[in-house]
């Protein structure tokens, strides 16, 4: 069977060049970077090289990069760390309704432990309004966190504009750029951010590695204590092969991004247009055009449920994901789709295709050929569709 991977927002394969490089640091140059001897020094050097590859990719200084075990930890470090370090200054935090759980759940934890939280709404395209942010600010606001691009619907937020406001007011601004990195430019200067989260496994680097950009002069408290690695911001023996792989993945992404994003945008629009044309009762979730990530397609296919769509696609070798509650084991469907105003049943029938480096027009055509048949079959089974049809006729 042919396998078509269209779930790159969940994770990506490691680039072979990256994997090969990592292998060397697992087996051959395996020292602990803190060691003074030959084995350690070699690794230390490669680790610092990786730090500058990562820093370069986001327009930061090497001393502003703290490596973590992934995007989730970086989000937690930024948010818990900033909240704790500034607890004496104020207790008010601001975020949005469509953040990743790594951000949202961390804020909710803080809200249960003495902080106050404002969660901003989004419009029907999944976009936050700059005005809403400005209006939510209070004298005791200490941290604002808004994601760069949403992982479910690909909506790109007005980060630079929000950053202007936070800078004026002297409030720390954290941005989760896990999904935008490698797809659209991410530059900490242009975006006016103080803290920025990125993750390796979304850009063809290894899982289990991420980084937090911490603007020079910004003080946050560490989460994890111990050996004083990463300038005491993140103790623990460094995952050197992972970090070195992440560095390489950043370098490759910076070389390939322009061309790749052009290609992905074309495939994306082909898939969106194809689905909207070939299947009835379908809604595109998220904006069209420049405000959407080049690789994101998210549609709600009414009267059918997301997991059974996924399962049917999977049987044909097509890997996608859904905003259905059934895929997460919880009862509620995607908080992002609900925040955009979708009803529960429509949100349950949503499907995300996230494109990547190896995808081709052929892949898209295959999906466009098979998906309508799947939808027909499931709708024939659906008690909602029957009713809808009766009502329509």
């Amino acid at each position, binding site marked *: 069977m042919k396998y078509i991977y269209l779930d790159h927002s969940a994770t990506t394969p490691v680039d072979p060049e990256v994997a090969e490089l990592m292998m060397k640091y697992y087996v051959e140059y395996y020292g602990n970077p803190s060691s003074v001897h030959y084995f350690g020094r070699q690794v230390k050097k490669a680790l610092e090289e990786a730090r500058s590859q990562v820093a370069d990719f986001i327009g930061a200084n090497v001393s502003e990069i703290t490596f973590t075990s992934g995007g989730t930890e970086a989000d937690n470090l930024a948010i818990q760390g900033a909240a704790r370090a500034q607890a004496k200054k104020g207790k008010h935090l601001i975020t949005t309704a469509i953040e990743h759980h790594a951000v949202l759940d961390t804020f909710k934890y803080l809200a249960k432990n003495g902080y106050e939280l404002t969660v901003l709404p989004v419009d029907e395209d999944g976009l936050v309004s700059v005005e809403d942010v400005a209006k939510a600010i209070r004298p005791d606001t200490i941290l604002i966190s808004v994601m760069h691009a949403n992982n479910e619907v690909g909506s790109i937020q007005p980060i630079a504009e929000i950053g202007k406001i936070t800078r004026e007011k002297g409030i720390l601004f954290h941005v989760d750029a896990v999904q935008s990195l490698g797809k659209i430019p991410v530059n900490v200067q242009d975006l006016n951010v103080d803290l920025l989260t990125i993750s390796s496994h979304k850009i063809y680097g290894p899982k289990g590695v991420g980084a937090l950009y911490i603007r020079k002069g910004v003080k946050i408290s560490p989460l994890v204590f111990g050996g004083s690695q990463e300038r005491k911001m993140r103790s623990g023996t460094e995952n050197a092969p992972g970090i070195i792989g992440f560095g390489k993945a950043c370098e490759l992404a910076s070389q390939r991004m322009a061309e790749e994003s052009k290609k992905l945008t074309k495939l994306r629009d082909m898939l969106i247009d194809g689905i909207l044309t070939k299947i009835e009762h379908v809604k595109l979730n998220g904006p069209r055009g420049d405000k959407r990530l080049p690789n994101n397609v998210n549609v709600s296919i009414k*009267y*059918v*449920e*997301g*997991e*059974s769509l996924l*399962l049917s696609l999977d*049987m044909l070798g097509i890997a996608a994901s859904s905003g*259905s*509650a*059934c*895929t997460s*084991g919880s*009862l509620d*469907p995607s908080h992002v789709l609900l925040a955009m105003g979708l*009803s*529960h*049943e429509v949100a*349950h029938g949503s499907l995300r295709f996230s494109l990547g480096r190896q995808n081709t027009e052929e892949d898209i055509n295959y999906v466009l050929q098979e998906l309508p048949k799947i939808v027909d079959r499931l709708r*024939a*089974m*659906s*008690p*909602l*569709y*029957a009713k809808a049809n009766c009502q329509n006729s």
Partner: protein
Amino acid sequence: MYSEKVIDHFTNPRNVGEIENPDGVGQVGNPKCGDIMRITLNIENNIIKDIKFKTFGCGAAVATSSVVTEMVKGKTLEEALAITNAQVAEELGGLPETKMHCSNLAADAVHAAIKDYLKKQTKV
């Protein structure tokens, strides 16, 4: 994640559809939770003669609906009422933990259809 039997029932569901002029109709779940099962059945001499289902829901919901129709077809109402959701899951070779409470309602749907039938009977 799913057993082969679940996948089989999901791919080739038995007794899909809606009986015209059914003796009993049962519908459980609601779209908020992402699972709705609708059972229609015909009953003759206290025995389930025919049964069909329609389901909006995940793979587990479809498979439990399909297998329950096989389990109760030809059974007496008492036998059908004695079948539990847990037995349905067992018949499928088990379900993932996360599916046990929200998508495993097929027996409930059958019971609802039978009760609908019984209610109509007493009214007559």
